[in-house]
């Protein structure tokens, strides 16, 4: 009799736990409905094709399909890691990425805070103009850079000469490449990136601002102590996500800015893979490098997330 009761109570506890869980789910059912379309979409369109990840471990041949292609394990990864240029690629990729992040992340924030202090039609005009570079294609952007920095016809060199400095052939100088790449990126994205911060700033309670002004706070003090804390969560999240893209430096702009003279600093992972893929359709190799990139990104993301959780209350996970 005793034994029976114990078994009964074990299954009863399990039962109770399950019932409690289901009850929770039922309680929040509305939220699950909210999540349903997203869940379905991701399950079908993202997890559905996920079996394609195998391509990185096979010698893909379209004729045999993914399933029928030969399994080669880590061959492509080894080919990548043991490549002559591997460490140069890593270094160039990361230098560009970190430099980009360090510069192009804070500027939109400062710009947004400044724009927030302006009102009226001038603000609208300024904002529209600031967004416009986002829409310029990479090809034209590089064309503009080439023209502006050209030793013979470029504006920059004309000004340099005017100031008594020598004309420089910037586009072929390895020292100049990183700066050209990063700052043109800043130019192109800073306006567009202010949008999210401006939107966040709309959540600042204007009554609070009024009260602070009456209490004698200057503009700067208001910005630092009221505006900035409101957008801090957004900043932290966006920063974590930016860190989570750190290994992914796109190839197009670099490929266009690259030439024989600056290749030692301009060759990154994506350009290397692109050129290798031009010779034959190397799906498997490209896929392997992609996985490598993404693993690095995820590691960086989780690290940034852990750090931010330790330091503050906002974090991604």
């Amino acid at each position, binding site marked *: 009799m005793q034994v029976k009761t114990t078994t009964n109570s074990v299954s009863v506890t399990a039962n109770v736990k399950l019932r409690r869980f289901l009850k929770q789910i039922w309680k929040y059912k509305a939220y699950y409905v909210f999540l349903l379309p997203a869940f379905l979409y991701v399950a079908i369109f993202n997890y559905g094709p996920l079996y394609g990840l195998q391509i990185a471990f096979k010698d893909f*041949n379209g004729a045999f399909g993914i399933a029928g292609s030969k399994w080669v394990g880590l061959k492509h990864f080894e080919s990548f890691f043991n490549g002559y240029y591997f460490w140069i690629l890593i270094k160039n990729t990361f230098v560009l990425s970190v430099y980009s992040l360090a510069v192009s992340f804070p500027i939109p924030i400062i710009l947004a805070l400044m724009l927030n202090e302006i009102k009226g039609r001038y603000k609208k005009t300024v904002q529209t103009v600031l967004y416009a570079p986002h829409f310029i294609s990479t090809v034209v952007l590089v064309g503009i850079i080439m023209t502006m920095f050209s030793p013979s016809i470029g504006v920059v060199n004309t000004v340099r000469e005017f100031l008594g400095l020598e004309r420089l*052939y910037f586009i072929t100088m390895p020292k100049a490449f990183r700066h050209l790449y990063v700052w043109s990126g800043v130019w192109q994205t800073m306006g567009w990136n202010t949008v999210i911060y401006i939107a966040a700033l709309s959540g600042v309670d204007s009554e609070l601002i009024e009260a602070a002004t009456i209490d004698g706070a200057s503009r700067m003090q208001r910005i630092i102590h009221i505006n900035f804390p409101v957008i801090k969560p957004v900043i932290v999240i966006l920063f974590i996500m930016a860190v989570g893209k750190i290994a992914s430096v796109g190839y197009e702009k670099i490929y266009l800015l690259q030439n024989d003279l600056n290749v030692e600093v301009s060759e990154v992972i994506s350009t290397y893979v692109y050129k290798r893929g031009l010779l*034959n*359709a190397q799906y498997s190799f490209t896929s392997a490098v992609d996985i490598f990139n993404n693993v690095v990104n995820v590691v960086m993301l989780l690290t940034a997330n852990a750090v931010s959780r330790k330091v503050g209350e906002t974090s991604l996970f």
Partner: protein
Amino acid sequence: MSRKIYAIVLALCMIIVLACGCTSSESKTSSEATSQVKPEASASAGTAEKASKYPIAKEKITVTAMAVPTDVYGNDDNKKILWDKIEELTNIHLEVIPIEKEQRSVYLASGEWPDFFIEILNNSEVNSYGVEGGMLANYNDYLEYMPNLKACFEKYPTTKKIVTNTDGTIYQLPRLNIASTSVSARAHYRADVLNELGLKIPTTTDEFHDVLSVIYKAKGKAPLVALMDTNQYEYFLFGAFGEATSADFDSIDGKTVVYNRISEQYKHYLEYVSKLYSEGLLHQEYVTLDGAAINAMAAEGAAVFAYNLQTVTAKDFASGKVEVSTLAPLTSQYTSKQKLVGYPCYNKSGYAINKNSKHIKEICQMLDIAFAKEEVAEGTGLNGEAFIYGVIRQ
């Protein structure tokens, strides 16, 4: 009795004459051809033969072909003139499945294939789908249907070598350009500038240097603007300093492989170019000048020596006529051989047939038209034999 025979013979003659008349009037039909074509309609040659071979399909069949639209339609959307003429002749309707270059690889992997491909597959795809995958039809099995191609293989054996794969199969058709006079990295120059300064055409590298100096002193702008043409051939000056024409890997007598960038020839070439650059004779930004800039400078007269001065027009010249000449290859103390590097006349044109197509025979017969010695359908045939000029995509 004899009257009956006479009537039958007369009727037969009328039929034959009518048939000839019909086919020849087809080929005489004037067309709003694509602007590049100046065809010489070879009306009567082989019309009788044509009548027996064509149409290929007794009943109209439809074959599908995958192609990048510009390869089939050229510049005019929806006007696949050439193929329409072939369709008239062969009674095979061609349905083009247009895809973009980027979709290519995905389409191929998806397995839903058309009957054949027009210029879609590249070498490695032919290898993986054909040689390894066995999904392409082997032209060797169908040569009996392609007499023109067979004749072409016999007359020009290189064409057969070019399209045969390592395992002896042929999955693509050759492209032959017999009248080709295309040459890489030909230096063009503005003759009016040389005339104006009373300069002789340079034949050696030293003379070339002197000519450049005179022009630079007179005009103040660097007269030479590029070392490589758009295809990255830099052999024009490189070839003047030794026997080799390729600056990269090269093979000596088909056996030894050398890397010419570490050769003595390359060193001499670099010293020469260095001298030109430091004296301002070679444009200071030649590394990053793009085609548009070069064209514009050439039109202005600032650039005198370049590759492909095709955009200068008559109004850019004082005399009102285009005065551009081609510079013959230079010689130097290191070599007295004038070398030209030409585009290969033999190439692969990439018509690959799906092994599972139901109309392989008919497609082969249709594609055979491209190798005919006379113009079977207007605008087709071997370039250099059926017609001498004009650029028709085969």
